[in-house]
């Protein structure tokens, strides 16, 4: 996969028109700038005149290399064997064809993923790495699967794919294409253009081996993305952060690992904002990262624009293998619950989404505890032995008991309440003197209100012996 606009697109998100400058000359201009007449090689002043609003950036090889590294991490989701050149990503896909179901699928997945991260690309498939690289560089989206079609495609390539010096020498004696060069007598050719150039061609044509250094995936995932300009809106932040999460997803897949928690550092001019993202279970799903990130970024309030992003995978563990179900059974919906809860949590906040745990306490207020939706340590739903089992307990408890009037010796709420059952004395909690609910001494009754509602009321045993409404049998 060749990235012709890497120098420009490594700086995204960029305003349009924009161009990259090297040594005072335009190196690469985006589409809007090209339409205005800005072409490669013209001076900075000329470019400013042609497009007054143009954003000019200095070329930064370090940033391009970082972008390529991120893409290589991302491509770990496709194949474990990757190698990089200055602006080309070489993926060994021969061993992964069966997994993806054919060359066409894997190429489509690769091209789609790269485009989604905001890079334009040309790609080619060939049996030799150099052959694929040259075909991609000349924007011939060829797909050669055997040596014969490789030779045919390579023969039609212009000699400009060769190093500049060689290409000039070859042009002098009239060769235009690689095929033309190959027809020349090789002994004489080697004398004229040198053996290394011939070896290069032999590698491309698959006549001699072409070993490549493999891209080494980092041990710890911590990538920094420098933004070309300070960003303050969530959409642009999400776009930038997606490059990082895509890289993380690929890195995780290459290591067959999942992440439970990650931290996104938003570095501002002053200070830094930390977004920690947590997941219900180990996951390597890019879409899930993105959904949670989007909700968090949409609700985030920043006091100053963000200059760079850093993504650190904090909790990484090996992902257990899982076999796919033979039948589409009903329980498959359970795997969807974790992303749903994550999404709700990310938008609404952890305190608004919870699960309930029955707790062994006689005091009604303490018999239920909230727990985080992802809390695996809490014994969710363990029955509390001996507390209130078999006794009538209301489905709803009021946040705070509501004081009731007493009329003619009967509790009154829109009418006299009819006591149907009780009292049930609950006397407990002497040990936490006023800390939580404190020491209780109450007589509970089941009451029927005049509008036929079933209520749970109690009378305080201590003076003053008021009546309170505590729960509703819904």
């Amino acid at each position, binding site marked *: 996969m060749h990235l012709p606009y890497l120098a420009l697109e490594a700086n995204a998100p960029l305003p349009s028109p924009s161009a990259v400058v090297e040594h005072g000359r335009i190196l690469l201009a985006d589409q809007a700038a090209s339409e205005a007449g800005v072409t490669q090689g013209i001076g900075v002043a000329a470019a400013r005149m042609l497009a007054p609003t143009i954003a000019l950036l200095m070329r930064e090889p370090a940033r391009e290399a970082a972008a390529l590294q991120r893409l290589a991490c991302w491509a770990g989701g496709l194949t474990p064997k990757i190698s990089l050149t200055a602006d080309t990503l070489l993926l060994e896909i021969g061993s992964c064809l069966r997994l993806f179901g054919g060359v066409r699928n894997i190429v489509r997945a690769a091209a789609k993923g790269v485009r989604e991260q905001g890079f334009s690309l040309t790609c080619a498939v060939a049996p030799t790495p150099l052959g694929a690289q040259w075909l991609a560089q000349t924007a011939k989206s060829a797909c050669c699967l055997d040596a014969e079609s490789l030779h045919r495609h390579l023969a039609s390539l212009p000699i400009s794919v060769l190093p500049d010096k060689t290409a000039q020498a070859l042009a002098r004696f009239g060769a235009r294409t690689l095929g033309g060069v190959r027809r020349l007598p090789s002994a004489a050719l080697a004398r004229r253009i040198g053996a290394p150039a011939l070896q290069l061609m032999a590698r491309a044509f698959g006549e001699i081996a072409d070993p490549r250094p493999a891209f080494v995936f980092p041990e710890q995932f911590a990538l920094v993305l420098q933004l070309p300009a300070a960003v303050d809106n969530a959409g642009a932040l999400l776009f930038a952060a997606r490059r990082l999460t895509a890289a993380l997803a690929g890195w995780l897949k290459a290591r067959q690992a999942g992440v439970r928690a990650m931290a996104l550092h938003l570095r501002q001019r002053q200070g830094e904002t930390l977004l920690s993202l947590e997941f219900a279970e180990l996951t390597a799903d890019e879409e899930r990262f993105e959904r949670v990130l989007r909700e968090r970024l949409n609700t985030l309030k920043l006091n100053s624009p963000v200059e760079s992003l850093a993504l650190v995978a904090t909790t990484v563990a090996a992902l257990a293998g899982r076999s796919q179900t033979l039948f589409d059974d009903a329980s498959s919906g359970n795997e969807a619950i974790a992303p749903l809860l994550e999404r709700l949590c990310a938008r609404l906040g952890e305190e608004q989404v919870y699960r309930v745990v029955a707790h062994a306490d006689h005091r009604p207020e303490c018999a239920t505890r909230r727990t985080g939706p992802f809390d695996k340590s809490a014994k969710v739903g363990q029955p509390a032995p001996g507390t209130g089992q078999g006794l009538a307990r209301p489905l709803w408890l009021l946040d705070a008991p509501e004081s009731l009037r007493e009329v003619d010796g009967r509790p009154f709420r829109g009418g006299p309440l009819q006591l149907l059952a009780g009292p049930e004395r609950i006397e*407990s909690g002497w040990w936490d003197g006023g800390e939580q609910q404190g020491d209780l001494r109450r007589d509970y009754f089941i009451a029927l209100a005049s509008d036929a509602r079933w209520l749970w009321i109690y009378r305080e045993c201590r003076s003053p012996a008021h009546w309170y409404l505590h729960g509703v049998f819904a």
Partner: protein
Amino acid sequence: MKTALSLADILARPDVWCADRLAPSPLPTLASGFAPLDGELPGGGWPRATLAEILVDGSGLGECSLVLPALGRLRSEGRWSLLIAPPHRVNGPAWAAHGVDLTRLAVVAPARPRDALWAAEQALASGALGSLLLWAPCVDAAQVRRLQVAAAGSNTVAFLFRPARAQSESSAAGLRLLLSAAARGSLAVNLLKRRGPPCTRTLILEPQRPLYENDKSHEFHDSGPAVAGFASAVSGARSQRTLAFA
């Protein structure tokens, strides 16, 4: 070219039904646990992939007890239940006693009503839930329609609790029930809308009530004896349970 479409083909569609018969249900329904109600519901139970609207004022009439037997039945399917914007605090032990699996119950209590509807739509769209209970005191017809559309794409049993004053409004929900109190602690249910002929009779159901067997004797005195203060209440009670930790 004219396509020949037989009447039988049209009648086989799930959204077309004979006006004098209950509509067939595309997905298996979930028995409500109340025989009179099951007899009147299309498909013989709570529908999946349709929003069921329950109109009731406040809480305490037995509106949750009406749906809880079905939720208990979902337990065997091992699917999750979600409560969105419940009117009060959830009392865990009581829900567990009604057969709800607390390990597969989540509660969303958003601060704003808008968030509740958003959460409900997300939850229905995810298809992850066995049942959804949503309390929405003020929703308009367009929002109910959105919920119905979201529910139609899932196989979730979805309940929307609204105040009784909404009975005069039009609603896109496929099933609408109006609850009111009946004599002797029963629950009166009027089917305002269902896929089938209108149901004119009022169903009288007996949801689970919080009474012990031995307490039932002094139940429902129409002119109940005034419990003169605390002392008489205690003396009249046979089932005093003193729970104390020494």
